[in-house]
């Protein structure tokens, strides 16, 4: 399973085959995971992306890591941006301002311009300069920024390919890995670009696109000769730490599927601390299972989830609330008002509250934060509040099902019992539709909360729609929320058509014991 900060088995650095080349890690954890450990020493790689996608920052971050790890870097610019201006832009990033870095600049981390050589003597002149500097400075990592400018000096496509080939052969002899940074596409993105796909050993494509009010950045491995890699686009966030890459959870899990299939499912049951509900579930939820709480707004889903966490806290099981809807003060107040003592359990460290404003979140970032907190706190119960709010963060709708399947699988592998709330858009109505595709297949259990209107009063009902590996109460039961929390009452047998929310009294049932009108 993925349950550590170490890379999953299938994504860990593959040991070099006999006679093979060792890996050169980028130092960016998520990117090294995607690359199955990093580049190969002596290889030639293209990092391509439109202006503003972060190539120079990425290149510098890789360079700094390499130098700090004992390598020797030559960063050669073919761009008009001066090194002092580039340094000024990098000075806000933690990886560049680390106190260990300045002493490396000018020695293990060396910056030059190749534009003069290119202008004076074209590609041959640039090649001579690079070869001499690789040799004289014992360079183990060469970055060539703005390689599209070099391409402009090529008289033919073949000449540029020959330049790259000569550079790579020379660099390989000196054990030097070469990264080319280019705004020109490897071919597909830019018709003017020379097709270098067959020349380079690997291609990383950076891209960014507007999504509603945000800019979403991604990195995709287009090619990686000699190695597997995690396919598809993976989220890139550029912030104070520099470049952070978040591998898609479902891609990570696909690489480790074998490790998820071992071991027997737990038969231990966990309950909510609500007697009637425990009985409905024939003892409670299986440990490690995932349960969806469906219901319209205000139906009690969040309180039910807090009950679950509070009961776990009473039993010494760590719990985590993770949501986008309710900030912690609101949750604490809501829980305390019904006697769940959430404030007490939070202060004792038994329940952690993690809330993120929905406007400032990326789904892959949230997933990583969630899993990091689960591992760090050794949490056993997770309450994920507002699955609909999370699904709104998904950029590509096709990811919804696979993403949530991967998330629940990972939580299950960590031994976590998970509740997720799913808000149904309508308070009443003849149809019940789960608004998030694929959820019902992913969760083992589904509890359904809703209102029913009867004789001008609203009543709350709860029912178990699904429970895998166990029988369950098929009855619809009324529940109440008061100062003691949620209590499950009798069934609502006197009404029919209840699940539509438009209950009608059963003919002849008026005055019966189960008739709520008698209360």
């Amino acid at each position, binding site marked *: 399973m993925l349950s550590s900060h170490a890379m999953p088995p299938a994504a860990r650095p593959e040991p070099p085959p006999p006679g093979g080349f060792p890996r050169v890690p980028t130092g960016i954890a998520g990117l090294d995971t995607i690359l199955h450990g990093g580049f190969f020493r002596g290889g030639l790689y293209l990092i391509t992306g439109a202006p503003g996608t972060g190539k120079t920052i990425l290149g510098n971050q890789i360079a700094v890591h390499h130098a700090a790890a004992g390598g020797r870097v030559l960063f050669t610019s073919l761009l008009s941006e*001066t090194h002092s201006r*580039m340094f000024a832009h990098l000075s806000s990033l933690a990886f560049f301002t680390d106190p260990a870095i*300045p*002493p490396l600049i000018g020695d293990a981390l*060396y*910056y*030059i311009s190749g534009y*003069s050589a290119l202008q004076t003597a074209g590609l041959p002149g640039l090649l001579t300069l690079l070869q*001499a500097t690789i040799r004289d400075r014992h360079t183990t990592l060469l970055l060539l920024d703005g390689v599209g400018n070099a391409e402009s000096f090529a008289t033919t496509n073949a000449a540029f390919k020959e330049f790259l080939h000569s550079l790579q052969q020379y660099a390989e002899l000196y054990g030097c890995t070469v990264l080319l940074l280019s705004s020109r596409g490897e071919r597909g993105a830019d018709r003017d670009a020379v097709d270098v796909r067959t020349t380079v050993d690997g291609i990383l494509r950076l891209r960014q696109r507007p999504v509603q009010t945000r800019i979403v950045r991604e990195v995709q491995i287009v090619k990686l000769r000699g190695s597997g890699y995690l396919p598809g686009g993976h989220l890139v966030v550029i912030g104070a730490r520099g470049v952070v890459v978040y591998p898609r959870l479902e891609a990570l899990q696909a690489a480790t599927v074998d490790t998820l299939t071992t071991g027997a499912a737990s038969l231990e049951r966990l309950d909510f601390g609500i007697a009637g509900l425990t009985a409905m579930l024939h003892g409670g939820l299986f440990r490690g299972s995932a349960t969806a709480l469906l219901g319209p707004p205000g139906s009690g889903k969040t309180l039910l989830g807090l009950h679950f966490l509070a009961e776990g806290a009473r039993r010494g099981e760590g719990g985590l609330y993770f949501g986008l809807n309710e900030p912690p003060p609101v949750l604490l107040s809501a829980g305390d008002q019904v006697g769940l003592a959430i404030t007490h359990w939070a202060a004792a460290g038994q329940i952690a509250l993690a809330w993120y404003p929905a406007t400032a979140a990326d789904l892959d970032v949230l997933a990583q934060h969630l899993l990091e907190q689960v591992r760090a706190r050794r949490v056993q119960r997770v309450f994920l509040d507002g699955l609909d709010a999370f699904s709104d963060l998904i950029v590509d709708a096709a990811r919804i099902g696979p993403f949530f399947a991967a998330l629940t699988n990972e939580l299950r592998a960590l031994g976590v019992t998970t509740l997720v709330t799913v808000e149904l858009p309508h308070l009443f109505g003849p149809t019940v539709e789960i608004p998030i595709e694929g959820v019902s297949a992913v969760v083992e259990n589904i509890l359904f909360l809703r209102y029913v209107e009867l004789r001008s009063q609203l009543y709350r009902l709860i029912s178990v729609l699904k429970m895998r590996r166990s029988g369950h109460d098929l009855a619809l039961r009324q529940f109440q929320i008061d100062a003691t929390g949620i209590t499950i009452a009798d069934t609502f047998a006197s009404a029919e058509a209840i699940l539509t929310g438009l209950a009608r009294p059963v003919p002849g049932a008026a005055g019966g014991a189960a008739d709520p009108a008698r209360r």
Partner: protein
Amino acid sequence: MPTILIAEDEETILEVLTSILEDSGYQIRGAANGAAALAGLAAAPVDLVLSDVMMPIMDGRTVCHQMQADPRYQAIPVILMSAARAGLNLDACVHAAFLPKPFEVEELLETVAQVLRAAPRLAGRGPDD
């Protein structure tokens, strides 16, 4: 007029420095790397070397060392400049001043003028010649 040799691999910076110093009355010769700078010194004398530190082929520190080792060039003052402001080890380089990039025109001109005033007269020419 004092002659200044500028060793700078970033072409844009070389052009800008050349323009500014020429406008201030200096004669300028340029070199794209340290080896070209030493070749330029051998070709004709200069009054001052203004050199970047990080350059291909030969860096600014090596230029300083080579000049100090050659009696022909020992008296020529060197101003080093670099975008690497902190942590650059220049202790073993004999240099008259250091200009951290980016610098402003006034700082450049004042530093050049100060170094030339303090330098011994060379080939009969002084800083104000």
